[in-house]
């Protein structure tokens, strides 16, 4: 009997300890890899109790509780983790947000990022919600400075390098409204489809030949895939073997922090031979 009461009291004590800890810190669930990355960068990872299935960076995020993904969040798991805040993406035309709020969860929704500067907005909101305002401000200033330095360097180039970015096989590319198009611009390049006011769309090889990019960035294929295409030699990028295919899709496509490394790398690569 005494033994039991001892165990019980230990149990309650530990429970009260942990609940005290919980109230001191917020419990956050991030449903997007980019938010997770920013949370870690702000040093707020101890508040993070759940991440999406796609959150693979930094590596430590893999050990957090998985709560489904972007299009199919696992409501039961999210509810079970008792989050104070859920960071959710815009979810255009979806009832997911309504369903989450119906569970009385506090959801902070972010707009989709369509340009690099939108990342600052995301950082600011996350810093606010995690009580890391100072860290957030410092991070934003650092990143802004980096962008400015890159743009100073790229401004020296006589002309902009024309870039064709292929997101997926069969000529899926990025129009002006896409995040990737802005990444190219920030690196001092000019998207050959910058006059198309759409996000991602399918084009054809003939159009690529006509627009004659100086560089091809492929997120799916290899340089060989492009060399073998008909009339490939007519394209400057192919005849000068300027095909970049080794870019990590996660790094370039996620509106988080690593994309700044990519912008810096690209800004050098885009103007290597000039």
């Amino acid at each position, binding site marked *: 009997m005494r033994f039991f009461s001892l165990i019980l009291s230990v149990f309650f004590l530990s429970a009260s300890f942990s609940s005290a800890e919980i109230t001191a810190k917020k419990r956050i669930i991030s449903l997007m890899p980019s938010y997770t990355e920013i949370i870690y960068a702000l040093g707020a990872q101890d508040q993070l109790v759940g991440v999406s299935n*796609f959150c693979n960076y930094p590596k430590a995020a893999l050990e957090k509780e998985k709560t489904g993904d972007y299009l199919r969040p696992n409501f039961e798991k999210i509810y079970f983790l008792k989050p104070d805040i859920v960071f959710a993406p815009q979810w255009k035309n979806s009832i997911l947000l309504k369903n989450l709020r119906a569970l009385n969860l506090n959801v902070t929704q972010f707009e989709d990022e369509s340009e690099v500067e939108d990342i600052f907005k995301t950082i600011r909101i996350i810093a606010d919600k995690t009580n890391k305002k100072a860290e957030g401000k410092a991070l934003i200033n650092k990143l802004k400075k980096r962008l400015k330095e890159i743009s100073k360097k790229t401004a020296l180039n006589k002309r902009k390098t024309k870039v064709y970015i292929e997101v997926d096989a069969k000529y899926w590319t990025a129009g002006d409204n896409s995040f990737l198009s802005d990444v190219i611009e920030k690196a001092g390049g000019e998207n050959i489809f910058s006059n198309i006011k759409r996000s991602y769309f399918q084009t054809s*090889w003939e159009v690529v030949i006509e627009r004659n990019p100086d560089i091809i960035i492929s997120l799916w294929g290899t340089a060989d895939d492009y060399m073998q295409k008909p009339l490939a030699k007519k394209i400057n990028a192919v005849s000068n073997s300027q095909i970049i295919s080794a870019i990590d899709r996660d790094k370039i496509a996620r509106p988080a922090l690593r994309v700044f490394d990519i912008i810096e790398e690209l800004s050098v690569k885009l103007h290597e031979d000039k």
Partner: protein
Amino acid sequence: MKINKFIIALLVLGIFFVLSLFIGPTSLSGFDILFHIRLPRVLQAVIAGCALSVAGVIFQGVLKNPLCDPYILGTSSGALVGAVLAQILGLSQSSFFFYILIALCALAATLIAYNLAKYKKQVSNVDLILAGVIISTFLSALVLLFLSLRRESALNIVFFMMGGLHETDKGLLIAVAILVFFGIALALSLSRQLDIFSLGEEKAGHLGINTEKYKIIYFTIASLITACAVSISGTIGFVGLVVPHMARLIVGPSHFKLILASAIGGSMFLIIADAFARTVIAPGEIPVGVITALVGAPFFLWLLLRNRESKCK
């Protein structure tokens, strides 16, 4: 008289063929663009168009079911599984083997469905269609399972499902063209037996036709040319279902004429549809399957209504 009609139809096809070479998303011209970029694509449209339509004629003729299309026996889901397998094996979409694998899987799925339906060396049509539906459903479930486990490669499969005419290996194109040509020639030479089939299998049997043997031959031809079409163009719906009906409304039920008319009509249809697909929202593209359905369905309805009126008179 009838022969003349086909010559005229062929001429019209030729005109469309040449004209479509000059239709493209860019104002680029010159021999190079026409020969290396647009010609292969128009050829692809011709091959896929006639292969799918003739396969449709054969399936509808043998199974005596007007709703049959070249994918009825699970051919398209087989092709999708092929695309998924290629993803798992890490085959690039620009490699020759990617397409071979797709054609093989499409063929395998069809043969499995056929053998499932076979009972005591007899194949009943209802069983065959059921087996096709079951194989399709099962394979689609496999594909969906893969898509939900490997979301990052989902897009590639989805694009393949949408179908489209893009550059493929030239060797593959030639190989496919030869196979489809011989398939159609064989189907033409066996068109009398197909006519007898439409009397009903029992009567065909009484007239001295080895129905089981011919069924196997027809299905092999049809699945083979479907697999060929799928390997160069993905799964393009609607052509194989509707073109045979259009042809039937124009040339009547004789299978010799029907096969010829469908081959010509299917090619023409896909040439026009693809010309739209690559230019309407240039520099963007629309999946050609979208166009075939959007344009084909109303045209088919119009043809049907016109035919009904002329019958009433």
